[in-house]
């Protein structure tokens, strides 16, 4: 079996296949708009990093600068310790999967996968074997002789992934490759991308605006805002320990509740909760609490009123309003949804999970 199939951390020499990637103080402006505003990012060899953020935050620009498809105004791009800022795209040795379907329409799936190998003058037999191996990796051996228009969207993106990986790139770049697909295919394909990335061990940068996608596949997720990284952390840390109010708001649902902060704890909804590092230190503040960090009990003497109870399949959401007028969303068991009706009184108790407190709005 080719070395491509070996997990990144299980190589005989103990090394990982991927290379380190570093972006230093990247700046890129389009007229008055600063798409990148001093972005610095380090990616470890073999790591899968996702860049997440709202439209226009600069995540795609960052990826395109790394690919060489855009030139930064200032800053440096390093791959494996080598400055490649001025290296043309064709010489960067990076595989890329695009948001738009990018298979060459006049070529079959096999020819598409072999295209990069042909450019590298790989002998025909090896090229064919490699092409077949890559199509097998993405589960499309049967579709090798089909043209792009004969493949579904998901299949086209799989072939594009196989094509990008066939050249054994130093870095794999994924520019919202799932956004054009329907929800079910998207979930299947993102799991497949992660499986393949773990198998081949290529350092990967994945750009998406879908937080669930980013949290599901990445080793670390970077949340971008206005051309810079707001926070770069493991998915669980990003979710449960957001560094800023923007990250807390952007990733998952968050309740913004007024609180009194003192001694590393906040008094919120009548309960004391511990605060995350970087929180406001004292006085009135806004505490950001996840819906699943709020316990709900039906209580005729409760100080909150149910507005709506929504069934979401695996879970349920309860929208309530407190006596002081704050809207609070709590996650509840899906089977409990039917037990709550609009107008019911409930008691809301924050769980003792660390929360972020920011200066009051």
């Amino acid at each position, binding site marked *: 079996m080719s070395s491509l199939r070996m997990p990144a951390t299980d190589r005989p020499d103990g090394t990982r296949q991927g290379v380190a990637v570093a972006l230093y103080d990247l700046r890129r402006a389009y007229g008055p708009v600063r798409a990148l505003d001093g972005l610095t990012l380090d990616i470890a060899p073999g790591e899968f990093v996702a860049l997440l953020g709202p439209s226009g935050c600069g995540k795609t620009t960052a990826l395109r600068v790394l*690919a*060489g*498809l855009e030139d930064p105004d200032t800053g440096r791009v390093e791959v494996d310790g080598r400055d490649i800022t001025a290296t*043309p*795209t*064709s*010489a*960067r*040795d*990076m*595989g*890329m999967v*695009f948001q*738009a*379907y*990018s298979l*060459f*329409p*006049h070529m079959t799936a096999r020819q598409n996968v072999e*295209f*990069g190998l042909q*450019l*590298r003058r790989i002998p025909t037999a090896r090229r064919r074997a490699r092409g077949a191996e890559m199509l097998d990796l993405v589960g499309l051996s049967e579709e090798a002789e*089909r*043209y792009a*228009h*004969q*493949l*579904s969207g998901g299949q086209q993106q799989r072939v*594009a992934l196989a*094509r*990008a990986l066939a*050249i054994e790139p130093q870095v794999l*770049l994924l520019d919202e490759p799932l956004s054009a697909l329907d929800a079910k295919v998207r979930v299947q394909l993102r799991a497949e991308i992660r499986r393949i990335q773990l198998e081949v061990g290529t350092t990967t940068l994945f750009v998406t605006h879908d937080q669930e996608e980013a949290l599901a596949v990445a080793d670390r997720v970077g949340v971008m805002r206005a051309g810079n990284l707001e926070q770069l952390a493991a998915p669980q840390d990003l979710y449960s320990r957001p560094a800023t109010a923007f990250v807390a708001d952007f990733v998952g649902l968050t309740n913004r509740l007024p609180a009194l902060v003192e001694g590393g704890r906040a008094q919120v909804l009548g309960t004391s909760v511990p605060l995350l590092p970087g929180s406001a230190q004292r006085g009135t503040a806004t505490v950001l609490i996840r819906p699943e960090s709020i316990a709900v009990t039906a209580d005729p003497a409760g100080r909150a009123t149910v507005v709506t109870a929504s069934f979401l399949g695996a879970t349920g959401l309860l929208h309530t309003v407190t006596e002081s007028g704050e809207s609070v969303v709590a996650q509840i068991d899906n089977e409990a949804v039917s037990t709550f009706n609009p107008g019911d009184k409930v008691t809301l108790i924050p769980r003792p999970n660390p929360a972020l407190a920011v200066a009051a709005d």
Partner: protein
Amino acid sequence: MSLRATRRRRQASFRWAVVGMIGLFFALPIFGMVEFTTRAPGGGRTLDTWATLLDFGAMDENYPELKAGLVASAGLTVLTVVIMLVMLVPTMTWVRLRLPGMRRLVEFVCLLPLTIPAIVLVVGLAPVYAWVAYFLGESSLWLAFAYVVLVLPYAYRALDAGLSAIDVKTLAEAARSLGAGWPTVMWRVILPNVRTAVLSASFLSVALVLGEFTIASLFSRDNLQVAINQLGHRDTSVAVAAALAALVLAFILLFAMSFVGARRRTHRPKES
């Protein structure tokens, strides 16, 4: 019979009547040309004129201006198409990739020749051609530079339709990320996907060059139409036959163009 069926039958009759009238409009002059070129001197029919036209040896001897015009037009056709493609395809691709803001300007420049009468073009080009003649000689082939300007609007439209049908930017970026340089991107990715458009632009250019008279005549250069015009003063029958042959060749080219486009559409494998 239902009202709908009656209406459908009337519409079909109307369609056929229109097609018939248009067919007559085109066929009558052609029939007249065929009739004229097959008249025998003492009455009856003969194919002598056509035999003369197809005998290149005899043509060279009896109608040297026609052969010279034919050769010049063949050369002009090839040169015009080559210059047009080499100039227009990379430019239009580059504008789409890197200078999308310039697209309107390029379109305006390419369509401009439509609005300029040939005589104005000749007046404008006269000083340029004085230099062309000085540096490159008096050959009729250099008319190709002027003809490229003439064919720009038609070629631009055909190529623009082809380039609009594909995602040039994404395909080029995908190819470059796989290690392709710009020549490879153009030759192996863009061109195969705009093949029909390139053929359309080429055929339109060929048809236009084969039928061009004004510029060549005003610059006193040889081409097929100028030769036919000259020949008309001496041997009308051969001149009309040559004109008809040029017309038929243009029809064949236009038919080939639509056939190539249709074949490309019908030969595509079916959707899964």
